């Protein structure tokens, strides 16, 4: 859901294709993507320029400051690029505290250049902020005060007049080119439901605007309108988030349903595990465990909304598998929580959880799991009674609370318990 960062390679491909269609601007950029499955001979066959030109190669993994981290190589030939990539592909690096392997590179022609302009469009609630600076490039943060911004209200067109104050410092003869380019990019931004575009920098090649580096974010909710324009657009995980098999499983499940299912593994050895309904409540339960000083014991973050019994069963299985994977004799807590539902049938939701609990009877007992339940809403009495009953049946301690109890009260109970 919501905003998704896309790879530089995809940002540039979308820009190139659609700038032509929407603004009749031919962007002379070329880029190629390399992952561990890339066959370099095939790639060369498809992208002939790779052998004809000097090249730049860098990781394309949604993190910035690549130059500063020594991950960009300039002015290589194709053989040197291959060597560079092969040496680093799969290598673990650390960027701002996040660790992960490098899996994807982008290769482009090496463009000796003079001008480095900064250009960004950011979608906001009442319009878009459009920023431009003559001093773009890796040092942009030091020249932040040289970035000019205008705010363009929703529905106002981007015109030469609105752009004029941004580019006032540029030589007059290039105003036309730069304005047309910015208007074109803005048209692509709107037409393809981008929520953020940044070029830092773009330059001029033979007097024509040429983005050297680009970041993009699209509004995933607009996917249904953009099926053709986006094509098979990839939404990579943020860098450093290497999903565990369990996380990937739930992520895939979530993609296929209208229900909401989220699962993040925080600490496999944790002793407090969450199974929380509702986007708002799941956050607050997680907060509360942290506020009570037990963040380190939190096994996971989970949120579900509107799942079918089968989907709930699958999610519950995953959580129980993780929660019972590392028994150490000490007590563990499973929080089956949620706010007082508006319309979810609590009894029905719990049926899926109960089926999973029954499947994992021996694991639950071995891991010394105590279950704390709190929920209200339609049919909650039935749901709570069923949970109580399954506890007795399985020999797993279960405490149940209804709407009369404070929502996060079970966090306290769980912490006292462990």
């Amino acid at each position, binding site marked *: 859901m919501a905003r998704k960062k896309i790879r530089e390679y995809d940002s540039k491909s979308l820009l190139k294709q659609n700038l032509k269609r929407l603004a009749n601007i031919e962007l002379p950029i070329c880029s190629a993507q390399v992952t561990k499955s890339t066959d370099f001979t095939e790639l060369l066959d498809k992208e002939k320029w790779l052998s004809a030109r000097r090249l730049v190669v860098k990781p394309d993994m949604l993190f910035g400051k690549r130059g500063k981290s020594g991950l960009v190589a300039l002015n290589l030939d194709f053989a040197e690029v291959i060597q560079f990539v092969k040496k680093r592909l799969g290598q673990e690096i650390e960027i701002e505290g996040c660790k992960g392997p490098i899996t994807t590179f982008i290769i482009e022609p090496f463009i000796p250049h003079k001008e480095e302009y900064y250009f960004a469009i950011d979608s906001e609630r009442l319009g878009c902020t459009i920023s431009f600076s003559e001093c773009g490039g890796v040092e942009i943060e030091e020249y932040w005060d040289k970035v000019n911004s205008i705010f363009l209200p929703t529905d106002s067109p981007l015109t030469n007049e609105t752009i004029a104050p941004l580019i006032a410092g540029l030589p007059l003869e290039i105003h036309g080119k730069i304005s047309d380019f910015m208007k074109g990019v803005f048209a692509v931004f709107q037409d393809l439901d981008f929520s953020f575009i940044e070029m830092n920098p773009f330059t001029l090649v033979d007097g024509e605007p040429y983005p050297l580096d680009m970041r993009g974010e699209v509004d995933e909710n607009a996917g249904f309108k953009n099926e053709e324009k986006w094509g098979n657009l990839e939404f990579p995980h943020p860098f450093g988030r290497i999903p565990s098999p369990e996380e990937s499983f739930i992520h895939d499940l979530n993609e296929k349903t209208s229900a909401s299912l989220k699962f993040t593994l925080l600490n496999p050895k944790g002793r407090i595990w969450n199974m929380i309904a509702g986007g708002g409540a799941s956050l607050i339960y997680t907060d509360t465990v942290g506020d009570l000083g037990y963040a380190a014991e939190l096994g996971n973050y989970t949120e579900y909304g509107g799942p079918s019994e089968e989907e709930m069963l699958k999610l519950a299985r995953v959580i129980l598998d993780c929660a019972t994977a590392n028994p150490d004799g000490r007590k563990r807590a499973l929080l089956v929580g949620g706010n*007082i539902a508006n319309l979810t049938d609590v009894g029905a939701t719990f049926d899926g959880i109960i089926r999973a609990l029954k499947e994992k009877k021996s694991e639950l007992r071995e891991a010394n799991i105590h279950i704390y339940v709190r929920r*209200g*809403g339609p049919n909650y009495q039935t749901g709570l009674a069923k949970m109580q009953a399954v506890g007795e049946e399985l020999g797993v301690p279960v405490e149940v609370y209804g709407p009369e109890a404070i929502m996060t009260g079970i966090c306290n109970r769980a912490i006292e318990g462990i």
Partner: protein
Amino acid sequence: MATGQLFSRTTQALFYNYKQLPIQRMLDFDFLCGRETPSVAGIINPGAEGFQKLFFGQEEIAIPVHSTIEAACAAHPTADVFINFASFRSAAASSMAALKQPTIRVVAIIAEGVPESDTKQLIGYARSNNKVVIGPATVGGIQGGAFKIGDTAGTIDNIIHCKLYRPGSVGFVSKSGGMSNEMYNTIARVTDGIYEGIAIGGDVFPGSTLSDHVLRFNNIPQVKMMVVLGELGGRDEYSLVEALKQGKVNKPVIAWVSGTCARLFKSEVQFGHAGAKSGGEMESAQAKNQALKEAGAVVPTSYEAFEAAIKETFEKLVEEGKITSIKEVKPPQIPEDLNSAIKSGKVRAPTHIISTISDDRGEEPCYAGVPMSSIVEQGYGVGDVISLLWFKRSLPRYCTHFIEICIMLCADHGPCVSGAHNTIVTARAGKDLVSSLVSGLLTIGPRFGGAIDDAARYFKDAYNRGLTPYEFVEGMKKKGIRVPGIGHRIKRGDNRDKRVELLQRFARTNFPSVKYMEYAVQVETYTLSKANNLVLNVDGAIGSLFLDLLAGSGMFTKQEIDEIVEIGYLNGLFVLARSIGLIGHTFDQKRLKQPLYRHPWEDVLYTK
């Protein structure tokens, strides 16, 4: 935005995309509040018109259904709230159409997943035209004792428990719809309850913001204090901070921003709501809580302490005499719906229909207990499906194969027989498939196609009574009844019906016993001695062989066999089979574009 009250006890809404439950919940709330008029004036269901029956208390009322937004607004000019239950794909377009109606002031959008750019268009239009958008991705909102949007505040029990049927003194706004219901409970526990509560929805760009509603609450005299539940992500809380700093809010604000846990996650995380994304420091829950506190809001140390902070503020206002105790009213009892009463086991009601052959309530439909998937996976044929749906059991393959042969043999018999003729005439009269089919089917009866059942009945009776073919045939003759299943227009003793031969050969090879068929052959031998055209015809062959199938398979009791023959199952076989041919004739005539059939004069004997 700003200004004050959005709703009152007379507010009426138009409801887009008919959903029975949320509308009924709104009407139940109305009744609970003692409203005189229902809060839903009309329903818009694209492409449909008429009325929807719903309950207003004990009484049933008919709410008009309109096919377009324009028509609904014209018919209900006083309805100024538009509640949009359209899907995320169409919510934006219908919401914009509603905003453009002069009579509509407030639009609530329930759908989750509306594209940001579309919401921005709605926000822009609403701002320039002084209209209010609540949502998208929200449950809605409620004004105590006055008006409720859709599913807000859940069950009747919950509404009564939170005393939402009468106004309290607290204005509440949050992003989360689920948490708003939780907070209605919390607030009811420690104050005199909700005056108005709004869930703005979890999107990145809500149609109206937390601060929009806080500023509005500030203008409503009955609201004495405001409770705000924010979330990490976005900067909306900072406009509230600004408003507080500028002294635009002169009532106490108790605020909490959830999502302090985001720092536990090393990389960027998208939480449950689209807007709840960990980003820069400014957008963190900690920073927002800090800023709100510095701007003068009451900010607890954690969510757990939220309730106590609300309580303390409320009690202080009571002490200061700013809140006086309200007179409690007892809401009327809402009659329970039959469905929920049955579900909870409180009442029972007789059913009006009984069915034993199929069940469509589970994951997949079942024929006589056999799920659709195993029917397909095990390679069952039409004969097996007939055996499940007609005989409620799985018959052995030779039986179902026999049924299939019967169907294939009876599917059509040329264009001249009366059924096909009728179908052809009807099709040529320009009638539709079903009319053409049934006009052919309606000819099936004692003289056309209906002989299988009778053949089976008479052969069975004669055989079971031990009559010789002579006794049987002559007995029938005495009663003036032709022996069904005997006789053919063309076929002769020396030119047997190929179909009869095929059936008999199949049965001899596969059936454990063919005693009825042997009896029918003996009868035929006798009738052939009387006239060369009195052969056993296909009706007689199917009728007698079906008796062998029923008796020989060992899967039917004597009573069951009697009943099957009595009810007329075997005719069903002919009706089913011949439908295939009749449908074919209909398509054939239509494909050939045949004109209206008129019988030629020359072919009619006009006479006195």
